[in-house]
């Protein structure tokens, strides 16, 4: 299987070449409005999957950051400074993300970065940004260990420069478990995609679910298409079926969850599939072929259109006419960008060049506190979002509908 590794290197190379050429032409245009008085330039990086199966989410993150920066430049939020966005494609792959992070860290005018989308990628980019003293705020990393370390009983801050605006699997998984128990569902089969995110979600779910008296009938895994799976889940479904579960809890993303849900229902197993924020995406419903009525997903925060700030964000995003939807993480990316911008107001006030303001920005981000579109934006001593609001969404009439919003206890 030597040829596989050749292709594995070849594909990212080709993609990186394309992505780079795309950056060159678009990075200059993305600054949008220029304020007359601005003299110096500071950059905010975006690192997310802008191609590949998760690009729908990644592009939503990119445009949301662009929107936040555009608004900040328009109001001249940081006097004397103009903000630019540079974006890098991590292809949802750890090795590509690492290279992209190194490139960003090498740019002296980059002070803060929004990203990555995948926990497994952030694991690789965290140390790079941390040693360069670049603030990294992820809108979507939900694996608990990224902030508190692998040992949840003895939490220890991993990287001083790393923050996140979303809640973690330590909250999402258990919240889903409590929700199912409350609905009288006591037997669940779990499936995850062997990625850091999916596995973390299922582990957190399993712990709470069994503690509350539930039974896990079967624990299976699948392989994502990016890692060599073929989206044929019949063997897994056959294994799950004899245990007669009342629901399937899936840890992973929508490109696999959609077909899985469809194949489960086609196999005459009419039970709901529940997942985390990775499946809370309109594409999930498309891929599930209309058979996913009643499927559930948790997502962090209150629904974006439940608050005035959220409504305004969605309206502004629509008005800016970006080619892609803001997606599941748009609001978190927008809040993350604004957290950096807020911090820059303090850190750049007395700075002569962006690089010297890096440490001050980290300090300022850890103290930010403002009302964002996803709720209160502030970080605890580990870099986690203090807001622990979660919403369960349900597929109804071919759309995700908010079913229950609550604060995790």
């Amino acid at each position: 299987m030597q040829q596989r590794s050749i292709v594995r290197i070849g594909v990212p190379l080709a993609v990186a070449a394309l992505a780079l050429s795309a950056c060159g032409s678009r990075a200059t245009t993305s600054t949008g409005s220029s304020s007359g008085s601005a003299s110096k330039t500071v950059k905010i990086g975006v690192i997310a999957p802008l191609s590949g199966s998760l690009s729908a989410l990644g592009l939503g993150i990119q445009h949301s950051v662009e929107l936040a920066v555009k608004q900040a430049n328009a109001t001249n939020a940081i006097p004397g400074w103009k903000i630019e966005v540079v974006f890098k494609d991590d292809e949802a792959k750890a090795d590509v993300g690492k290279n992209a992070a190194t490139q960003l860290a090498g740019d002296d005018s980059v002070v803060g970065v929004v990203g990555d989308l995948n926990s497994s990628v952030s694991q690789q980019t965290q140390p790079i940004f941390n040693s360069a003293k670049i603030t990294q705020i992820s809108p979507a990393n939900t694996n608990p260990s990224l902030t508190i370390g692998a040992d949840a009983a003895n939490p220890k801050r991993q990287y001083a420069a790393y923050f996140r605006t979303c809640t973690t699997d330590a909250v999402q998984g258990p919240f889903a478990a409590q929700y199912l128990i409350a609905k009288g569902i006591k037997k669940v089969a779990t499936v995850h995609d062997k990625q850091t995110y999916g596995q973390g979600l299922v582990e957190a779910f399993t712990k709470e679910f069994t503690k509350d008296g539930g039974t896990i009938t079967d624990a299976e895994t699948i392989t994502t298409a990016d890692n060599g799976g073929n989206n044929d889940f019949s063997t897994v479904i056959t294994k799950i079926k004899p245990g007669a579960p009342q629901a399937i809890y899936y840890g992973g993303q929508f490109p696999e969850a959609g077909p899985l849900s469809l194949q489960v229902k086609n196999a005459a197993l009419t039970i709901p599939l529940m997942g985390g924020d990775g499946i809370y995406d309109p594409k999930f419903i498309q891929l599930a072929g209309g058979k996913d009525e009643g499927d559930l997903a948790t997502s962090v925060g209150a629904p974006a259109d439940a608050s005035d700030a959220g409504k305004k964000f969605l309206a502004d995003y629509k008005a800016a006419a970006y080619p892609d939807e803001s997606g599941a993480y748009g609001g978190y990316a927008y809040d993350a960008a604004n957290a950096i911008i807020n911090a820059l107001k303090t850190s750049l006030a007395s700075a002569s060049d962006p690089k010297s303001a890096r440490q001050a920005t980290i300090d300022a981000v850890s103290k930010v506190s403002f009302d964002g579109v996803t709720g209160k934006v502030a970080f605890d001593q580990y870099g986690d979002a203090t807001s622990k609001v979660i919403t369960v969404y349900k597929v109804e009439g071919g759309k995700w509908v908010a079913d229950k919003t609550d604060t995790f206890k």
Partner: protein
Amino acid sequence: MLFLQQLINGLTSGSLYALIAVGYTVVYGIVQLINFAHGEVFMIGAFGSLAVWTIFFQGQTSILILIPMLLGAVAASVGVAVLMERFAYRPLRHAPRLAPLITAIGVSVSLQEIVRLFYPGAKSPLPYPQIDYVSGTALQLGDITLRRSAIFTVGALVVSAVFLWWFINRTKLGRGMQAVSQDPDTARLMGINVDRVIVVAFALGALLAGIAGVAQGLQTNSISQIMGFTAGLKAFTAAVLGGIGNVAGAVVGGLVLGVAESLATQFIPGAFGGTPWKDVWAFVLLIVVLVFRPQGLLGARVVDRA
């Protein structure tokens, strides 16, 4: 019951591997080239059928649409395979063997990127249409769940295998292929148009790959530009398992690989069993077979000309 169920699952995924594996083996048999872009031919087939549906039949589910969709798939994959042979491989016919191999990898990457960049919406997985009778709720036969797409896939393999057997053994072109595979120089002296035979070999593999593309779409309801890479790798494994260059071997290798995967998932107990170890056992099987039978299960039919 579980055994039977997993056997059916395995035969289904195995049929898909087999349909693609034939393309590797036919081309290898004639020109000794591992066409690593063959997985992409399969992917293009799936996109070809989706394009036909999107352009002409959007929103419809009638079983009759399957015919134009299959034609679209086959047209797309055969077209791409023939162009690939003409412009990427033919100029390298007499180059060292490594050159066409690297070219194949380059073609594979290019085709993936072309689809990703230019097929509308292909930046993330696209939903594949649900067609009456061949997709939808599975049939229940006692305890056995029989997926409709599985019936289509296995059926497609049976029809294709019969067609292949007839084509290779009963037509002039097919016998020409056998002759070229045994000795291209003598075949040329006997008046066989070797270039034409090679194009036919590529087209034949692409024909089956196109059908496999439709089968895969119906099974999983989602297609993406990367699906060809994985499927191609598995199919190549199947071709080697059965004996590369041997068409019957490709079919047998595909089925054996599929069944081995699904049975290993169900019946290997403990820490080394279950879905995470599925691929491990599939490749262990490959290694064991190659250790004891380096020529593959049915044996490579091509005499080594080196």
